[in-house]
């Protein structure tokens, strides 16, 4: 009775509670497919179908990746590029130089702090908004979702431009509004003079732009939490937080972990936002790992140094990637 009553107030959306654990139906379909007699066509056809994709990926993604590794053991510079000469082989020199350079470690630590802050706020706010979406009236949910989808689709350089304008020292709205507070004068305040506050604004931009994907994904995961379970926990006297901790979160955990790892990887690659905010010439204090590799290669024209920094980044991220992959396999998406 009580369950039925509360359900009546819940908006009906998207219909069904999806997916029994995929583990149940998967092996059955796999066996069924294998039992069918495989004709000769069935054996070669899939390879024919994947060949074009393999060629494109191997040529444009796989090969360059190997070449990055090779480059990082050489010393490729502008004159090699123009003259077409083979760059000299320097072994591990690039790596020892980079790892012995204190500037690299400053950039590294700055990047880690930046990523941790961004990912933390993205996931926290994304989760809160996802849960909020379940609780607001349907018309408001449509409004919030539309705003988020617009933000999601915005080109990165567009959203950066908007933030740049809002935080402009002369004509920015933020300074204007802050100055309205009693006893505060932010007129003409330059947020980017101090790299910490400048990076905080860039982090705000990154978080704001990343929230839609996280919130929408988590919201669709939340709709799969069986209402009966939450109701049962509530009747048994669980507190709001207890329900979330022991009933809701375990169900959305796979999606939560996946989106977190993706955010980590994406935020490590932040580059364009800094470049545009700093008018294409970022100060040393604004260097983040992705940008650092880019500047070394294309501004200092030391392509090999840039390549070596990329490789170091990829190696550091590989732990996260492997974790992501294991999560996916655990929930049975890669069969």
């Amino acid at each position, binding site marked *: 009775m*009580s369950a039925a009553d509360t359900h009546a107030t819940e908006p009906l959306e998207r219909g069904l509670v999806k997916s029994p654990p995929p583990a149940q139906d998967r092996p059955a379909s796999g066996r069924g497919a294998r039992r069918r007699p495989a004709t000769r066509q069935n054996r070669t056809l899939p390879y024919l179908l994947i060949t074009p994709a393999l060629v494109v990926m191997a040529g444009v993604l796989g090969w360059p990746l190997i070449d990055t590794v090779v480059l990082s053991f050489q010393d490729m510079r502008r004159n090699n*590029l123009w003259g077409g000469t083979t760059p000299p082989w320097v072994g591990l020199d690039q790596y020892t130089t980079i790892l012995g350079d204190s500037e690299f470690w400053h950039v590294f630590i700055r990047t880690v702090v930046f990523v941790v802050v961004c990912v933390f706020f993205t996931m926290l706010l994304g989760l809160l908004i996802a849960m909020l979406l379940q*609780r607001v009236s349907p018309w408001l949910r449509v409004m919030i979702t539309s705003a988020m989808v617009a933000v999601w689709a915005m080109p990165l*350089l*567009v959203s950066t*431009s908007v933030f740049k304008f809002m935080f402009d020292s002369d004509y920015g709205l933020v300074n204007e509004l802050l100055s309205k507070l009693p006893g505060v004068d932010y007129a003409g305040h330059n947020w980017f003079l101090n790299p910490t506050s400048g990076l905080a604004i860039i982090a705000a931009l990154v978080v704001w732009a990343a929230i839609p994907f996280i919130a*929408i994904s988590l919201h669709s995961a939340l709709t799969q939490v069986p209402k009966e379970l939450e109701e049962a926990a509530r009747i048994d006297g669980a507190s709001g937080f207890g329900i979330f901790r022991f009933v809701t979160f375990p169900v959305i955990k796979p999606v939560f972990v996946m989106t977190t790892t993706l955010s980590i990887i994406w935020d490590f690659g932040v580059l364009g936002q800094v470049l545009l905010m700093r008018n294409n010439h970022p100060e040393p204090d604004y260097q983040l790992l992705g940008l650092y590799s880019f500047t070394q290669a294309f501004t200092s024209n030391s392509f090999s140094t840039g*390549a070596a920094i990329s490789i170091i980044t990829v190696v550091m991220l590989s732990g996260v990637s492997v974790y992501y992959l294991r999560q996916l396999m655990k929930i049975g998406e890669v069969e």
Partner: protein
Amino acid sequence: MTTAAKVTYKSKKKNRTGWNILGLLTFVVMGFPVYWMVITALRPSTEILSYHQKLWPSSITFDQFHRAMDMPNFWDNVKSSVIISLFSVIIAIGVGLLAAYALGRFHFWGRRGLMITLLLIQMIPGTSMLIPIYIQLNDMGGLNQYWGVIVVYAATTLPFSVWMLRGFIVNIPKELEESAMVDGCSQMAAFRRVVFPLLAPGLVAASIYALMTAWNEYLFAYVLLQDNDKYTLSIWLLNFTGQRGTDFGALMAGSILVALPVVIFFVMVQRKVASGLTAGAVKG
């Protein structure tokens, strides 16, 4: 029992107002930068370059849009963006569809490895491939050519397109195809006549997602293209910042011009994309 039920009901009803207020706040915070962009693009320059910004415009004008479109190379860059994203999407979806069909319908040796590769590739930062691609294109004379960027975009959007299309294919019942084959279709004919029509919405969603990725990309375009009239629209936005500061009014108008097409397309297919990105559509 009845009282308990009533209490839950009541407290839920009462709570919603509080949630709605929070929700409105979220809407305002998320949407404000978008609002600010639109409003700035529509107001006269004197109001933009003022030390007393108002939250709403006193008059509306399309001046900023005219000035933005008068910026050098606007139409050239529109052409670049359209050519590059269109061709890269066609390649990515065409090639991707074949691979997705193989992954979704066949059990072959190496299938699992291919799927893991697709996922891993998406986790490699683009910058790490930028340097060798730049050097290679330089050797092949592909710098500053559309085809260089097209091939790169097609390849970078390919893994995700395959992954997403596979999700849609898996959700089309195999029995439909099998009955077509019993009735005398070959496997490919069954695909063309049965699966393909059913796949159309998924195909549209995947294409638009790929289109959005290509349209919004800036890094490869910035490095691989060199002439002002060959840049894509994303790069065109860098024109508004000069030695003497930024022309914000025209920049906001230009931003709207760049963002509008993809935002409209994306709003239409967002649900499908969201489910393709996470668990829902990618069940085995």
